[in-house]
């Protein structure tokens, strides 16, 4: 492919190396054809799998005009789906955020037996299929489940209701924050926190004034990942929701229902809202990655 590189005398290359380094030297040797071809193939691949589907969502969403789009995202069923997802979000985020911080503190700051086992257990939900994750809670709280009789006796509704959706979403999103924070906290080391304590700060003062400001970017990054999955979770929620229109449909489930009713324009209209959120999330990740 590059006859010039094998043809050039090694002595000349060595002599030239200290003077013309890096990119200039490389371009001179390889020419521009290989990079151009490789870049072209890579961009085609990304376009076919990422860019074209992304554009397709918005094209399909506005196919019947802006008025139809607005109707689709403001009709009562859509609003109830948006409300349900908001409620789920409000339940899941604080719990998994608090868990992530607590787990990271215990794991990154202390030595104890079984630490690696604990890390593996925290990561387990990532290895479990979303559908199986949903099934776990049906087996626990469903009519024939472990706690089924208890749930019935107390007239509770967990499966095919909000608590089931929250539990399934909690399960699939457990690892996000802990996973981001453990390496960040380990890297920071305990010195600043120890200094604060030695100078007389209480534990909570140390946490709010030293630990939290130090881990803020990592925490925010974890929060962005947690948010995206919480809003978008489909498989696990699908198993426990029961798909009751206007009651137990989160936004992604509502998209599925519209799509299966051949109401494509409305399905893509709702999907475009989720896609917009996903793009915001990507922008946030990109900005945060330079800081973490």
């Amino acid at each position, binding site marked *: 492919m590059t006859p010039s590189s094998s043809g050039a005398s090694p002595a000349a290359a060595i002599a030239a*190396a200290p003077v013309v380094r890096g990119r200039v030297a490389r371009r001179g040797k390889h020419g521009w054809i290989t990079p151009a071809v490789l870049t072209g193939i890579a961009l085609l691949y990304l376009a076919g799998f990422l860019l074209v589907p*992304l554009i397709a969502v918005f094209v399909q969403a506005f196919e019947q005009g802006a008025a139809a789009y607005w109707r689709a995202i403001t009709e009562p069923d859509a609003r109830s789906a948006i409300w349900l997802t908001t409620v789920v979000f409000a339940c899941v985020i604080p719990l998994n955020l608090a868990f992530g911080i*607590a787990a990271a503190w215990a794991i990154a700051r202390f030595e104890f037996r079984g630490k690696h086992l604990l890390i593996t257990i925290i990561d387990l939900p990532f290895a479990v299929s979303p559908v199986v994750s949903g099934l776990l809670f049906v087996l626990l709280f469903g009519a024939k489940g472990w706690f089924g009789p208890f749930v019935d006796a107390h007239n509770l509704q967990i499966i095919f209701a909000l608590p089931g959706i929250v539990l399934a979403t909690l399960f699939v999103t457990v690892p996000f924050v802990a996973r981001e924070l453990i390496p960040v906290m380990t890297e920071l080391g305990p010195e600043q926190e120890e200094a604060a304590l030695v100078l007389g700060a209480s534990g909570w003062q140390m946490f709010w004034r030293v630990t939290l400001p130090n881990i803020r970017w990592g925490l925010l990054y974890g929060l962005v990942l947690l948010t995206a999955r919480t809003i978008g979770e489909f498989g696990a929620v699908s198993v426990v929701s029961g798909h009751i229109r206007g009651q137990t449909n989160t936004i992604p489930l509502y998209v599925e229902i519209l799509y299966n009713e051949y109401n494509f324009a409305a399905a893509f209209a709702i999907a475009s809202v989720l896609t917009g959120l996903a793009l915001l999330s*990507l922008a946030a990740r990109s900005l945060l990655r330079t800081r973490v």
Partner: protein
Amino acid sequence: MGAGGRTRTGVLPGFGLTLGLTLTYVCLLILIPLAALILKSATLPFDKFWQIATTPRALASYKITLLCSAVAATINTVFGVLVAWVLTRYHVPGKRIIDALVDLPFALPTAVAGIALTAVYAQNGPIGRYLQPLGINVAFTPLGIIVALTFIGLPFVVRTVQPVLQAMDPEIEEAAESLGANSRQVFVRIMLPTLAPAAITGFTLAFARALGEYGSVVFISGNLPLKTEITTLLIMTKLEQYDYAGATAIAVVMLGLSFSLLLVINLLQAWGRRWET
């Protein structure tokens, strides 16, 4: 657990509180539900379990799932290395945006990905319409499953290989070249051995993710039993028929597969780290 809790200086507070919270949470949310699944399947007599888990329909679904996941992960490995290479070594306009876009499959809800890919690869879709005259039908065939699984696994290899490439000193390649190696030798002898652990880890992560995937596949696959029915869809179908025993048995098979892969991933990552030092 719990014995210990030492830091180096021993002044940091909150060990008991945070570890206690962590263990309680993990028990309630992860361990008890997983135990429920395994114990539930244990209440089935083994021959009954085996019978449910190995019906022709179940076997066909394992085959389709494993095969499509493997093909998708392979596509992701080849192109993932290429994308990582282009992004780290070449000047590409809009590199920051392209790099951010690679994470789209992690951010986009799977149901949205599913309907978007179906729209694009259907016979009248913007890409499907050019494949159709070539005799390639993507939507509602196994090819559709592969497309969906390639989409959701796309970031893994890029993200595992990228840091290795960034850490690699181009001067090593230049040294090899100046000593007379041609570009193929540089690639095979220097690039491949360095990138292999990261690429294999990325492959396994993408493969594991693909095995359990549901949302992005169901719209594009056509969902024909024995032909385009993946295992997670079969579990879903059994649940909708209130066949909890059937769903549980197949879910346990799936879980066994996922956990073995998790073990492989952990071993691979340990191997990758050893390579670095």
